């Protein structure tokens, strides 16, 4: 079987890449992609650990909740991005200067 450390390295790599995407990208949707990558990295950890208790599978259940929350979060975030786009006519984050109406 695959050593658990390899899952964790993969997860760390995905986390790092997601972080870089969040920091460097200008477009709000790509930033959202970075967030999803980080959530996936976290899920990977949960599931990697969960395989060592096949009867309890708490990790898998938790991963399932993470996926659910990610879905809800993505829906709301995209709705907000759409709203921002309609208001400022841009989806580039640093061009959104003031949050007041």
């Amino acid at each position, binding site marked *: 079987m695959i050593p658990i450390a390899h899952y964790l390295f993969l997860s760390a790599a995905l986390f790092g*890449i997601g972080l870089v995407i969040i920091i460097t990208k200008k477009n709000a949707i790509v930033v959202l992609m970075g967030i999803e990558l980080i959530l996936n990295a976290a899920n990977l950890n949960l599931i990697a650990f969960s395989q060592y*208790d096949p009867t309890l599978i708490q990790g898998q*259940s938790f991963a399932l909740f993470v996926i659910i929350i990610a879905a809800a979060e993505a829906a709301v975030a995209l709705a907000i991005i759409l709203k921002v786009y309609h208001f400022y006519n841009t989806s580039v984050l640093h061009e959104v200067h003031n949050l007041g109406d």
Partner: protein
Amino acid sequence: MIFQQVVFYCFAATAIISALAILTTRNVLYAAFLLMITFLSIAAIYVFAAAEFIAIAQIMVYVGGILVLMVFGVMLTNRISGAAVTTGNHHRFWGLFIGISFFTLICTVIIKANFGQLPWIMSGRETYTAPVGTAINNIGIKLMTDFILPFEIAAIILLLALLGAAFVARKPQKN
């Protein structure tokens, strides 16, 4: 077993390469489709970790749901004028610096912690059997017993998110 490992590393490599490609590409839509490849490879890796159900849920929710939402978002927030939808970069140095330093930090921790030698992991490995067909039953029972509260809360959150998203994204009412 060696075949299984080769396949695992292939999927891991695909996940990382496509994630890196998201980082390097300027085209937002390419990024979305590359993210699909990442998600699919991660789903494959879930299967290696005996989490079939989560893998399929990953495909359904992330690829079939979130990704489609994102592609829709890309299409709706950009003028469809023939030009490719691109995104610029900024804070390149700090981004790379923070990312790489986080990665090295986590890797160091993983190596230092030596998870493979933790007692519960060791015992888990002894009792580890190949993925058997009872995982879904277990998840179902767990969700309806131990995790019933988070399960219901998740349902409410989903409903709220649905309503909230629809409310936020709706066209402003004309008076």
